[in-house]
Each structure stands twice: as structure tokens, then as C-alpha cells.
């Protein structure tokens, strides 16, 4: 509140309004601080506990019964395999679906039903996707407990999020842009490719990356489809068995020997590091492309 605008004899309702203004403002600051403090404490504690284990060998060794020799090689390599494949499956499917729903489909009953379904799917608990993955990929398609089955399950999990984020991004593109393009004689696809997609790209990208960083931390659906706990080799193809970081951390936390807790903490640091890096890349990319347009 700037004092210049304050009158000596403010009516009571103006004073009340500015009072509420202050309250909301401080409540907002407190809310932000809460989130930041929780993250810092969590990261700090894991870092303090796990720091002694964060050596190069930790990243280059397989799990072991001896806590000080155990590493996360199979876990982090598995995580990268699964996440990259998952993104390769979910992103084209999700973006194409959103494009169809937003740009092509007319608002008839079928697309309305589809819309409601997708919104509902985004709220389904991840363990349900695990069951779906077990039934569909592992059993019916006989993929076994492979990287492909894991990535497929996670792709199903994040597909609704990708679709919703992409649709929001497409909706935010002003209609005048499309109309201008049509007026110049462009076809629908030309309009999408040259005008709509570039304008929506930063927001689409943010949505995709947030969805992918959610997939990085998922454990339950992967345990459901039978991702492994101990594995001392790296996947050579998408048909090979795998493990991921959250499962390795979970396994170490539940061991009786205290020494494994340090390993788990170090694993948490790596996992948080991956997630934060992905998010940072998202922010950077958005910033960069927004400036271009």
C-alpha cells in the first residue's frame, strides 16, 4: 500500500479491505516458505546422511550385501532407460491426442466423453496403472518384466497429464493467430504446424517435463509389474529386466543394517537431483522459447 493514496479519513470498508490485503499477502509468503523449507530440510537431511556415500564408485557399482560396496549402477541406468522410453511413447501419443481433441474434433458427444475420461484418468492412483500394466503388458502381450513393460506402464500413467497439459497450452494460443493463418490460405495442418504449435511449445514442454519427472519417482506401479530388486547387469535391450532408483532406495531402507540407511539417503539425493535437473531444464527451455516468440 502506497501512502500517497491513503486519505486521512478512510471509510471503514477501505481500511478493512487493505487489512485483508495484508493478511492474504503474508499468508502467501508463509505458504511459499513452507514448501521451500520442507524441500530444503528433506534434501539437507538426505545430503548430510548420504554424503559420505556419494563417491564415483556409488554410481559405478552394482548392489551388494556389503553396504559400503553397494552402488546404484543398475538402478540409475534402469531409471534412464525406462524414462526415455516412457517419454518416447507418451509424448507423441499425448500431443497427438490433444491436437485432435483441441484442433480437429468438433464438440460432439464422443469427444465430450473422451474429455471427461481423460480428466478422470489423471486422478487414478498409480497402483491401478500397475495392475493395468501387469495385465496388459506383462501377461497379455507377454512382454515379461521388461524395460518395455515398465516404460509402457509409466507411459499410460503420464499420458492423461501430457494430454491435459497440451490441451491447456493449445487453448492459450489466441484464436486470432489461427484465423490470420486461415485468412492467408493455410490449411489446418499448416496452421497447426507453423502457428499454433510454436506458440504453444513452451507450455507443452513444461507439461511434458513435469509429467516425466513424476514418472521418475514412481515406485508402486513398477513393483506391481515386478521390476526387480537385485539385478547386477544392465539392460541391453528393451526386453531385458530392470530396476529403478526408487525401488533400490526402498529396498535399502527396509534392511536391518543401519549402514544401508546411508546408501538409501545417497540414493534419495541422486533421485532428487535428477528430478530437480529435469525441472530446471524445463524452466530454462520455456524461458528461451518464450523470448523467441
Amino acid at each position: 500500500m502506497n501512502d500517497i493514496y491513503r486519505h486521512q479519513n478512510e471509510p471503514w470498508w477501505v481500511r478493512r479491505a487493505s487489512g485483508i490485503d495484508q493478511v492474504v499477502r503474508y499468508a502467501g509468503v508463509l505458504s511459499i516458505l513452507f514448501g521451500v523449507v520442507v524441500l530444503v530440510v528433506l534434501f539437507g537431511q538426505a545430503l548430510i546422511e548420504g554424503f559420505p556415500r556419494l563417491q564415483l564408485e556409488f554410481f559405478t557399482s552394482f548392489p551388494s550385501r556389503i553396504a559400503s560396496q553397494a552402488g546404484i549402477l543398475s538402478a540409475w541406468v534402469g531409471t534412464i532407460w525406462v524414462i526415455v522410453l516412457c517419454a518416447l511413447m507418451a509424448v507423441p501419443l499425448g500431443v497427438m491426442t490433444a491436437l485432435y481433441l483441441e484442433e480437429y474434433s468438433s464438440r460432439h458427444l464422443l469427444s465430450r466423453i473422451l474429455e471427461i475420461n481423460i480428466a478422470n484418468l489423471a486422478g487414478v492412483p498409480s497402483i491401478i496403472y500397475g495392475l493395468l500394466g501387469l495385465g496388459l503388458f506383462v501377461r497379455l502381450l507377454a512382454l515379461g518384466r521388461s524395460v518395455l513393460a515398465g516404460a509402457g506402464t509409466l507411459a499410460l500413467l503420464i499420458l492423461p497429464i501430457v494430454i491435459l497439459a497440451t490441451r491447456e497450452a493449445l487453448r492459450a494460443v489466441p484464436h486470432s493467430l489461427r484465423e490470420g493463418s486461415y485468412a492467408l490460405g493455410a490449411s489446418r495442418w499448416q496452421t497447426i504446424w507453423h502457428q499454433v504449435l510454436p506458440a504453444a511449445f513452451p507450455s507443452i514442454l513444461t507439461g511434458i517435463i513435469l509429467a516425466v519427472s513424476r514418472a521418475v519417482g514412481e515406485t508402486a506401479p513398477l513393483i506391481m509389474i515386478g521390476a526387480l530388486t537385485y539385478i547386477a547387469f544392465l539392460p541391453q535391450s528393451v526386453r531385458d529386466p530392470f530396476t529403478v532408483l526408487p525401488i533400490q532406495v526402498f529396498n535399502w531402507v527396509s534392511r536391518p543394517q543401519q549402514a544401508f540407511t546411508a546408501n538409501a539417503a545417497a540414493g534419495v539425493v541422486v533421485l532428487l537431483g535428477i528430478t530437480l535437473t529435469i525441472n530446471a531444464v524445463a524452466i530454462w527451455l520455456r524461458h528461451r522459447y518464450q523470448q523467441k516468440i
Partner: protein
Amino acid sequence: MNKQFITGAIVVIVILLGYGVMSRSDTNNDGSDAGSREKSIITVDGSSTVFPITEAVAEDFQKTDSLVNVTVGVSGTGGGFKKFCAGETHISDASRPIKSTEADACKASNIGYIELPVAYDGLAVMVHPKNTWVDSLTVTELKKIWEPGAQGKVLKWSDVRASWPNTELHLYGPGADSGTFDYFTEAIVGKEDSSRGDFTASEDDNVLVQGISNDQGALGFFGLAYYEQNKDKLKLVPVDDGKAENGAGAILPSRETVEGGTYQPLSRPIFIYVSQAAADREDVSRFVEYYLDQATKLVPQVGYITLPGNSYERARDKFKKRTVGSAFAGGSQVGVTIDHILDAR
């Protein structure tokens, strides 16, 4: 619009099914060529109790032979048997014997199994370290606490023994999916899976350790290995089974009393089940023999108790003879000796 959509859906389904059929034919010829020296995978799944032992064996085995990869999962004893009897795994880790329903599932899919005990585990009964009144518990008292009828009735320590204080009693134990829970209920209540429901359950024993160590009215049970790593936070309670022939009075679990068979009824053997078909594979049979060879060295390293005498040699014999079937009449059984398991035909 509808036409486009339906065409798209059909294309996707065809691609998925096509891939499924291709991969099915892939899996069919996996593993049958044991003679050639190609990379092979042995899949093990099952109990989280047996996991540390199998992990240790797998770790060392792969150092002797880099062409054989061993993977170990943790689905719980029940979950492990489900996969084992569906033919998805070669070896199943089990912290209790196979149940008759599981044996039927295996039979239905024509999967024979060789039952091999690999170690002993003691179930420790624990209270809060500041609990001064409990110096021992009898099996009858434990039954009184844990049986289904105790729910809503046995709520204070004084309900268990009149001389104990009028303090609230809070119970902690592993979840109903674990073989540990199955065995405990069989040994104490007398019927597998029969227990009161109002206790704090967790599949993660460290959660139980934390629960008991922060609750002065706590009583709980889990594997001895977890007690040994948390001795300062817990108080171990000796258990009296009321039978003089295996040691009179209340007995504390320890390496000696578990191995010697005096800590009864809460000592139990833990197992691996090897699929008969997989045992014919050269790499699997080599792995199982290595397992039984190295057990005396590796079992204590991961916190378990080795089987007595020449049990491992006899287990190797049983494996060589490919003796199929279980020595148990379905599910957990108390007081079954290792000899009995190994003699079973």
C-alpha cells in the same frame, strides 16, 4: 471424424497385438539351450526375509561366472509362489512352506518343485526398553494376546497377567501378506493367518522397530536379524513353550537356541523352491549347488542362522536326486525338524 478415430484405434491395437505375438515366440525358446555358452538369466522372486541371502549368493555367483545373470525380486512369499506357479520364475524364496492352494496352482500348470531349507530364522518378541514388568511370556499368554477373540478384549497389560500394570497394550507385527505373519499365527494361535486385526502392521520391519521403540506399552514380533541391529532400542522377551523336553523355562532367542532347537516354537526354517524344469538347466543347477555350498559362509553374514550339522550336504543330495514335493502338509507347521524336511520323499 468417427471414421478417423476408429481407424486410428484399430491401427494401434494391431501394432500392439503384433508385437505381443512376436514376443511370445521369443520367450518360448529362451533357456532351453543350456549347453551353449550364451548369456542366460536365472530369475528368483519371493520372500523379503530370504532376499538378503539370495542376494548375497547371487552377488558372489556372478563373480564366478559372468555369463549367468541372476535377478532377485521381492514379492513376498505368497506373491513369489504366484509367479513361480505361473512359470514366470525359476526359483522362489519362501519364509514358510508352500500352502496347499499354492501347491494346487503349481500342479495345475504342471510345475514340480524341489523344497530346500537354506537357513534358520528366529522370530523375536519385543517390548519397549522401559518396560520393567515383562521378564518372560508363555506361549499361552502370547496366544491370549494375539488370537482373534482377543480383539477389543485384551487391551491392557493387566489383561494378560494380573500382576502386570494397568497400562495400555499396543501390538506391532508384520503384515498379513508376509510368511513371517503366517508362521507366527500358526505357531502361537494354532491356525495360520488367524489373528486379531487391531494391531499396527507393516511390511517394513524398520517401521516396527521404530514403533516399538517409541511406545512404552508396545509388544511386537519380527525377525531376529532386526533385533540384533537395534539392540539399544528394544527389549527382547524370552518365550516359554511349557515343554520341558526342548529346554525348560523361558528361553531367549539367540544363534545357539535357534540352531539347537530350544527356542521353540518361534524358530523356523526358511526355504528356496527350485522349479523341476529349471533344475535341468545347467546354469540353474550350478547356482543351486553354489547356494548350498556357500550358505555356511553367507547366511551368518546377512544376519541369519545356519542349519545344523550336515544339513547343507543333505540338502545338496536332495537336490541331486531331484526329490520333488513338500515335506509339509500345506502351509506353516511348527516344530518340523530339518531332518524331517530332508528325509521327505
